[in-house]
């Protein structure tokens, strides 16, 4: 049984880690970008960002004053058991979000859409979002804290099979052009693309591609992996860099996730995980062990399964 107190304490630590410590994969990606960048203004910006990550760590201060929207992804092994059940888990995550907002401090960003009511703790109706995934084996749970920034930089469009690959590229470029100018997307970013699914799942896939996959990760379908590389290069060939200044670094990495869609359509979403690509992960075991990491490792073969039933051994043999 996984103790509820441990869920709360771990979640609070994750909120702090996500806000303060830039994940290593993105950090390395930005260092490479800073080395290759030749535009003087965009170079200055990238160097300032690298300095900022150091300052955040040294001062234990949030790397960005804008908290974005803190949210949770929870993955449970099939045998995981939680003290108090799922309702207690959700209560612990909401309490941890509120407590960390005060402790770090984080900017309370969440307000009612109409009445602008602000509880000053990043908690409210539907906030923080909590999404779930499952794995066939294991008695652990993974808690993933993501503080997704960027009011700008995400878009959705219903494309059709006749739009084809060129249509995908065009909508991708449109999104980068629209939100890259003046650096509204706070690029260079991890661009996540969702292809397929129903409309809402298309958004979810793209969001998860940007926030739950690391820089350097590849889609397991080699043809999609090749498209990821192609789109990364295409984004960086626009001639636009950080803050929309002339430069060659717009996309640190492009990740694509797909889902089966209606036979008549090809919905597509684009998401930008910004210069403050904040994610932190912990695995909690029933014996009280907690292991922290920054790779959510969300898209396992089980998450991308194509078959009716799950037969891991048969899939592995194929």
């Amino acid at each position, binding site marked *: 049984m996984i103790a509820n107190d441990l869920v709360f304490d771990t979640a609070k630590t994750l909120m702090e880690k996500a806000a303060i410590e830039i994940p290593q994969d993105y950090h390395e990606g930005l260092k490479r970008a800073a080395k290759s960048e030749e535009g003087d203004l965009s170079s200055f*910006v990238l160097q300032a960002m690298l300095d900022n990550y150091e300052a955040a760590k040294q001062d234990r201060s949030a790397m960005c*004053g804008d908290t974005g929207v803190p949210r949770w992804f929870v993955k449970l092994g099939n045998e995981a058991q939680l003290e108090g059940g799922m309702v207690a888990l959700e209560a612990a995550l909401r309490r941890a979000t509120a407590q960390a907002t005060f402790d770090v401090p984080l900017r309370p960003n969440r307000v009612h859409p109409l009445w*602008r009511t*602000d509880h000053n703790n990043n908690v409210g109706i539907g906030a923080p979002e909590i999404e779930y995934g499952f794995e066939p084996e294991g008695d652990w749970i993974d808690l993933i804290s993501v503080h997704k920034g960027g009011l700008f930089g995400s878009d959705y469009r219903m494309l059709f099979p006749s739009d084809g690959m060129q*249509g995908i590229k065009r909508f991708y470029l449109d999104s980068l052009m629209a939100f890259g100018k003046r*650096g509204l997307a706070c690029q260079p970013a991890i661009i996540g693309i969702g292809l397929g699914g129903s409309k809402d799942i298309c958004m979810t896939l793209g969001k998860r591609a940007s926030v739950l996959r690391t820089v350097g990760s590849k889609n397991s379908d080699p043809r999609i992996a090749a498209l990821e590389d192609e789109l990364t290069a295409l984004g960086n060939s626009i001639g636009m860099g950080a803050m929309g200044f002339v430069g060659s670094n717009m996309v640190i990495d492009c990740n694509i996730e797909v889902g089966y869609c209606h036979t008549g359509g090809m919905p597509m979403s684009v998401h930008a995980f910004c210069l403050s690509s904040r994610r932190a992960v912990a695995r909690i075991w029933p014996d009280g062990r907690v292991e922290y990491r920054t790779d959510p490792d969300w898209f396992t073969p089980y998450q991308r399964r194509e078959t009716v039933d799950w037969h891991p051994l048969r899939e592995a043999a194929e």
Partner: protein
Amino acid sequence: MKPREIRLSTTPTPEAIAALRLGDIVYLDGLMYTAREGVYIYALEDKANIPMELPSQSAANFHCSPAARINADGSFDMGAVTATASFRFAKWLPEWMEKTGAKLIIGKGGMSSKDYKSYFVPNGAIYLSTVGYGTGALLGRGVERVEAVHWNERLGLAQAMWVIKCNKMGPFIVASDLQGNCLFERENAKIAQNIERIYEGTKPAVLKRYGESDDRADEVI
């Protein structure tokens, strides 16, 4: 070429402002206040009395909500500081500048050269952009102390008017000048030369959207 780095007061002289060039890097000293839609609406539309002497105490309006807390004893803790996108405030800025004498508008992403020419230049004001934009921790280091927070009970922590004492706070980038030139538009124009090349071979989507046609009598197919 490396950009120039300059220290500037938050109550700058006209000469100091005139000396700034697009793309200069600026660090600020003195008092600065945050004001965004909440403050603008309360002060301009609801006609509340602004609780500071402006511009003598500060001519620097920051479009920002800090990551901060008010402790039980009434003291403040401020961590990261990050600007918010300014274009949304164009509606209130002309009146705000006239009323408060603000000379430095600091935020994210700048405004259009049309805004600069129509009310920045006549007021002797320029725009400073934060960098990144996520350099919240660096900017936080430039906060010597929080002097006051006004209207937080009415407007909430994010929309309140925070008064900050800055000490070499930065970096900021000069994004407009006294001729009304716009740094971002200058960069956009350079990048626009590549558009034809990168879009080559693509064609407009099969299903259009309004906005791509502004005539609502049109169909989108």
